């Protein structure tokens, strides 16, 4: 079968489009399909960010500020990242942050989104050595304290003393920092 559009090349793409229950079939070649980009527009524009944007736009807070139903909300300045200038409304459209400070400026408002995507809001993985601040030491301290309790419970006092010394050393390190 030849392409319905140019009539010259063989049709390599066979599409079925259903609009309001009406079925239309296309048999076209790759060349014409590319030129008639609109046939595929529906697919190409659909990405993970569209889905995110959909999620975000259902945020009741965004809806309120957009529809202007609540005077209080409209009177407020739009939520905006002061570093890169991205507004929350822009973020909710694109589904992407402008810079790392957006996370701080949009704050806890992001929690529902993260809960929907990840089922979680708190990072528990790897911590960078240098830029992770004192978090790495604090995590290690928490682990050591749990371990200390276990040794005390099982009356392994020598091991417990060793852990206690390590805890002291770490606490000192934190104070100095």
């Amino acid at each position, binding site marked *: 079968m030849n392409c319905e559009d140019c009539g010259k090349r063989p049709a390599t793409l066979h599409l079925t489009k259903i609009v309001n229950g009406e079925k239309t079939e296309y048999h076209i070649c790759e*060349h014409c399909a590319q030129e008639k980009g609109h046939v595929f527009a529906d697919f190409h524009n659909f990405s993970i960010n569209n889905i995110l944007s959909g999620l975000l736009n259902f945020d009741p807070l965004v809806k309120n500020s957009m529809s202007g139903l609540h005077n209080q909300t409209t009177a407020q300045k739009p939520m905006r990242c002061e570093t*890169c200038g991205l507004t929350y409304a822009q973020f909710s459209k694109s589904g992407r942050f*402008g810079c*790392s400070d957006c996370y701080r400026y949009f704050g806890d408002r992001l929690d529902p989104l993260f809960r929907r*995507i990840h089922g979680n809001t*708190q990072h528990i*993985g790897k911590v960078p050595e*240098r830029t992770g601040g004192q978090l790495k030491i604090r995590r290690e301290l928490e682990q050591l304290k749990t371990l200390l309790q276990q040794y005390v419970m099982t009356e392994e006092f020598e091991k417990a003393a060793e852990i206690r010394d390590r805890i002291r050393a770490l606490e000192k390190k934190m104070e100095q920092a």
Partner: protein
Amino acid sequence: MSVQQFIQNPWSNWMKGQGPDADIVISTRIRIARNLRHQPFPLLATDSQAEEVVNQVAKVVRTESLGKEGPFELIMMDRLQPLEKRVLVEKHLISPNLAEESRKGAVLLSGDESISIMINEEDHIRIQVLLPGFQLTEAWDIGSRIDDIFEKHVNYAFDEKRGYLTSCPTNVGTGIRASVMLHLPALVMTQQINRILQAINQVGLVVRGLYGEGSEALGNLFQLSNQVTLGMSETDILSNLYSVAKQIIEQERVARRYLQENSALALEDRICRSYGILLHARTVESKEAAQRLSDVRLGIDLGIIQNVSPFTINELLVLTQPGFLQQHAGQKLTPEQRDERRARLIRERLRAKIA
């Protein structure tokens, strides 16, 4: 290795066809997303800000030894022709996003192509490790080590509550996406695949096609990866993926045995027919090529076809993609011309192995 060699040479480390569980797991990939503090994300960066990021990242690679994987070659995207970029995508060395949409995008490639560090993709830095077979821990160890080296020299965007901060909220936290490429012909033939795919979605994993998000699962190849990046540690993410993949691998083996025991003739006929078609066809479309190559690969794994190596199949999978065919021909080709060249290339490669 020069830029041209990365483009001309079809060979990549991940194609070896070796490694643990290589009969079912083609390759393992880890991607780590990182961003620099005090720099707007690539989406909003000006050209000069984006250039500054490239300089900072490239400088680290020049000054620090990245171990036995080096030396790395820096390739700027704006120096490449569209076809050349497409070839790098087909070899899985860069993402379609870096090739098509990034401004001031660049990639650092290791000699054996198992490590690629993308710059100014969606995030400032994306470290990718791609190994043959099922090697999740190994890939993570290499990636994490490179991550540590970068962190010594650049300030990462990191937050105690959110972890590594990324441009897209789907990557925040650990910033890692781990994936395994699985060849599951027997699960497809026995029509069990849909049941398995549904179950996978319920445990925080996701399945995609050969070329990532939005691509089709051609030739019975499925890319299984983690969905969640926040609230789980790297170890949890990896062991979750590992145990699910391991179960699917076992299911595939059971299905292969079942087919061998219950419909040996039909199975052998299908495999040998596909092999015959590839050895003799004068024109073949990409979809058919992927399916026939899948059959031949299964034939190799089951010992039905003995004179073809899995490496040849992996290589053909890449060589028969549109970008590679056109690069090889040195010109743009119509779909029909591509189908003809694809058939010729497969014939030649498969015959070379018999002779």
